[in-house]
């Protein structure tokens, strides 16, 4: 770890005699200081690590048969931010003793560091200790050219010095000229994390070109250097745009905008490449809470045992409940968890006298909640749950207190009631709309709301049914939801300043008073999962259409060459393929069942008479059609909880918690398992696998909302 070793050195400098040692450990971020060094320290699921390790082994040695090497060219690690993708690679590099060459888009020369060679516009290989006296002529190249050159050189294990200039265009010469030179460290990988700006169309095209050229089998050289790409899911969440884009998706069957703003695997690699034999994709899931907590406590132990500051106390001031809070709010993002922890510790560490008050647990937890509240991130914060609780429990003047309410809360409510004026009565014809004064101040809610109103409406939409007693209640809420959504079109939707008030007032007005308590929980909106699923389904539809066209053309061609006389007829009838007739929508609506039936028939045939299987295989639709033809219908697991809500701990209903979208994982898992396996096994294994990697997200209980 170049960075890390330097970091340690910095610290050493500061602990020189005479220097105040107070800062020694506080300099630097914990995420850097305590980066895992062994696999045991990684908080990643063992299975994922072994997947990655296996791939790397195969890439270096070719697997048991020795032939896999050819196909282990690109490994794509995807997953949400902060799920230890890069760290896993680094840890494995230490364990398996290979070297990481990382591309960095840079402007200036940085000296090479020990373990990771810095390869920006100047190439320096770690085995050479002297910086290469580098000719700066290449500054005139565009940064993409540099990237391309880097890629070309690095993948071929060339010694850089043999071909500093213009080998990117002439691969054959460079490969033949240098095969002898990679002596010192035979194992290395290329890490691509800081990609060129592929959101720029032209750069993206050339990037794709560069990757494809690499994989082009005609220029295959022995011993290619495997490439590892790390791509974090980087969507900005809660954007209304996503929705709009999807609407656009229907019309043309082609996505106009979605690739532009969002960078994901599909942007980085073209579909053909991604699904091709050279690319393996491994998806990292959010870190499971148990693993996360373990890692955090280990980190704390390390931190407080090394940093014996004057007090002599080596015990961490962070209690277990507190850790839980951090874990909860981090939502599987270990980096953010550690950031919060460090940030929080600046406070806890200083106010160490607070530790003395162990007896009063209640106030301590309160304090911690406040603390976490102010440092947590995104919509997972407690604030959000207070917000949802306030709206969805619809408390009004004179409501009886909840059974679990504390005495002081009851008192507070009573005081509040005294201040609330009874609203004037509505005229006779609107009598049914009379309500008692609400304890909720929408203006205050609005200013405290941690989320924008479109996300807020998603949350309400996900959860309101649990809180309704009658159909009419549901009708009321959904009426207001759709009003807020539908009035005024896209531009207005995004800027409507009245939306929040409409939503919260409308919900409050429509819910029963008082809301019946039945242990409701607030769930995360499934919208984004559904969106992802839809995206994947479209991918499947497009694949299928491409397949229809290809197969159709082939059939026609073969038919026309066979019987020349039939040509005209064949073209007219399309031999039943009706190539042009299949729009994307048609495929999605009509073809799913047929494809499924065909496949089933094939499997049955195959088991009866194996010889048929090969005969039919030519007509097999691409497997991705499962994404739209075999969508699971998920029954609501509990009253109130939406279908497959991403929720709940394992004990709740026996279902394993799920992360990400079913569709998305399926494609990837398919690739992990090889493209053409038996379909029956597929779903089973898929679920099981997810279960194993699953991450229970402890959602806040009702009580948490009530406590406030």
């Amino acid at each position, binding site marked *: 770890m170049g960075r890390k070793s330097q970091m340690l050195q910095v610290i050493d400098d500061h602990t020189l005699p005479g220097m105040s040692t107070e800062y020694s450990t506080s300099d630097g971020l914990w995420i850097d200081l305590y980066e895992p060094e062994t696999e045991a320290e990684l908080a990643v699921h063992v299975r994922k690590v072994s997947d990655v390790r296996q791939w790397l082994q195969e890439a270096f040695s070719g697997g048991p048969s020795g032939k896999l090497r050819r196909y282990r060219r690109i490994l794509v690690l995807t997953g949400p931010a902060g799920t230890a993708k890069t760290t896993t690679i680094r840890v494995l590099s230490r364990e398996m003793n290979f070297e990481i060459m990382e591309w960095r888009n840079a402007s200036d020369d940085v000296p090479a560091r020990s373990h990771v060679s810095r390869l920006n516009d100047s190439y320096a290989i770690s085995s050479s200790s002297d910086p290469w006296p580098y000719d700066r002529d290449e500054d005139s190249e565009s940064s993409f050219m540099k990237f391309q050159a880097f890629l070309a050189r690095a993948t071929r294990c060339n010694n850089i010095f043999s071909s500093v200039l213009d080998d990117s265009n002439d691969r054959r010469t460079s490969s033949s000229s240098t095969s002898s030179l990679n002596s010192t460290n035979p194992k290395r990988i290329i890490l691509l994390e800081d990609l060129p700006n592929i959101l720029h169309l032209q750069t993206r095209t050339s990037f794709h070109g560069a990757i494809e050229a690499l994989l082009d089998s005609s220029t295959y050289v022995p011993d290619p250097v495997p490439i590892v790409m790390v791509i974090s899911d980087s969507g*900005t969440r809660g954007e209304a745009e996503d929705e709009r884009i999807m609407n656009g998706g229907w019309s043309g069957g082609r996505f106009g905008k979605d690739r532009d703003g969002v960078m994901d695997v599909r942007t980085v690699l073209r579909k053909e490449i991604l699904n091709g034999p050279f690319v393996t994709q491994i998806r990292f899931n959010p870190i499971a809470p148990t693993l996360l907590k373990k890692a955090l406590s280990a980190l704390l132990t390390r931190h407080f045992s090394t940093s014996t500051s004057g007090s002599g106390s080596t015990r961490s001031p962070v209690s277990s409940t507190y850790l839980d809070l951090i874990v909860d709010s981090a939502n599987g*993002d270990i980096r953010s968890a550690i950031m919060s922890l460090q940030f929080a510790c600046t406070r806890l560490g200083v106010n160490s006298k607070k530790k003395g008050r162990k007896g009063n647990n209640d106030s301590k937890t309160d304090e911690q909640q406040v603390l976490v509240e102010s440092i947590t991130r995104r919509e997972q914060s407690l604030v959000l749950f207070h917000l949802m609780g306030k709206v969805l429990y619809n408390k009004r003047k004179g409501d009886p207190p909840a059974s679990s309410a504390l005495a002081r809360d009851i008192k507070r409510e009573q005081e509040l009631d005294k201040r609330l004026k009874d609203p004037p009565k509505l005229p006779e014809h609107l009598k049914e709309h009379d309500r008692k004064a609400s304890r909720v101040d929408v203006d205050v809610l609005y200013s405290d709301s941690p989320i924008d109103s479109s996300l807020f409406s998603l949350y309400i939409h996900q959860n309101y049914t649990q809180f309704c007693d009658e159909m009419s209640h549901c009708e009321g809420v959904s009426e207001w939801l759709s009003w807020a959504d539908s009035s005024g079109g896209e531009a207005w939707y995004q800027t409507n300043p009245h939306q929040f008030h409409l939503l919260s007032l409308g919900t409050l*007005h429509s819910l029963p008073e008082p809301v019946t308590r039945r242990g409701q929980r607030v769930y995360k909106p499934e919208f984004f999962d559904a969106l992802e699923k839809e995206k994947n389904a479209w991918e499947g539809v497009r694949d299928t259409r491409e397949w229809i066209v290809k197969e159709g053309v082939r059939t026609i061609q073969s038919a026309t060459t066979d019987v020349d006389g039939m040509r005209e007829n064949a073209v007219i009838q399309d031999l039943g393929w009706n190539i042009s007739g299949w729009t994307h929508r048609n495929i999605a609506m009509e073809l799913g069942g047929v494809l499924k039936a065909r496949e089933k028939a094939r499997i049955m045939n195959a088991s009866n008479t194996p010889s048929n299987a090969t005969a039919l295989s030519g007509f097999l639709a691409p497997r991705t059609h499962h994404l739209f033809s075999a969508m699971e219908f998920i029954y609501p697991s509990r009253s109130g909880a939406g279908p497959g809500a991403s929720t709940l701990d394992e004990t709740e209903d026996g279902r394993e918690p799920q992360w990400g979208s079913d569709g998305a994982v399926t494609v990837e898992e398919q690739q992990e398992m090889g493209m053409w396996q038996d379909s029956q096994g597929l779903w089973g294994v898929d679920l099981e696998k997810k279960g194993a990697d699953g991450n229970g997200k402890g959602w806040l209980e009702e009580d948490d909302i009530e406590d406030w």
Partner: protein
Amino acid sequence: MSSSKAKTKPTDVPYELPWVEKYRPVVLDDVVGNTDTIERLKVIARDGNCPHIIISGMPGIGKTTSIHCLAHQLLGDAYKEGVLELNASDERGIDVVRNKIKTFAQKKVTLPPGRHKIVILDEADSMTAGAQQALRRTMEIFSNTTRFCLACNMSNKIIEPIQSRCAILRYAKLTDAELLKRLLEICELEKVQYNDDGLTALLFTSEGDMRQAINNLQSTHSGFGFVSADNVFKVCDQPHPVIVESLLSRCMKGDIDGAMEKLNELWEQGYSAVDIVVTIFRVVKTHNSMPEYTKLEYIKEVGFTHMRVLEGVGTLLQLAGLIARLCKLNMKPELFRV
């Protein structure tokens, strides 16, 4: 309303700094509101080792100010060379992130231990996705020498990988009490003459935005020499909420003629349809003695009209339609039978 359009003070000061700048806090202690978060920033300012920070919140609640204070307190004299500030008006495309920020990050600045160079990215949510992507790795690579402080209005406009690298602080809107306290301090220092209505009007017009409140205070002061409600609304050029309020109360009684009279009054004062609609919305949402249902339906109607106005149909007729619908709500449905 007090009609005391008192002595217009002679402008004896040739040049006056905007009060927002003049009274911008320089130490974290002076930053108003969000006590808990500020408290934590103070600890960082004292102990050093500032993490990457995102501060999100509405405009005018002290995001940028707190970051500046923090940077000043952390770096002291080294502020000038140890801080790189870029805001939306600077060019902040990928090239800038790649070059300017990286060059700065690689620059050698001698700082005491526990102190780091600071890159301040104001209005970070206006950075393009590409630039944010480029920033992602930079933050990590240079985190041992450089820390990033981002300010933005909506933290969900920041891509996840960056959020993951930062401690996120969410600033709540300032309460009226907090705003008022600061306004009073400034009035004191600047010897502003005011009455209570004037300050209430300032709070109403600024909606929790300290910057706007102070600007309005200064404009009213320099324009009229006295801060009264009337003067404030004149300066802010907003329809007077008292008129709007009486308009609404007539609507609730179903008195369409009276309501139209008020509307015409506003219209003849030259307010645009947007101004009127926005003020109606503000008044409705803070209205105390309105039944919930009425409030809800009124907001719905106002919102609808707002949209139409923004679409370009900002006529008196449009507003009259709104008034009519508001009136109709509380009238007996039998009256409308033909």
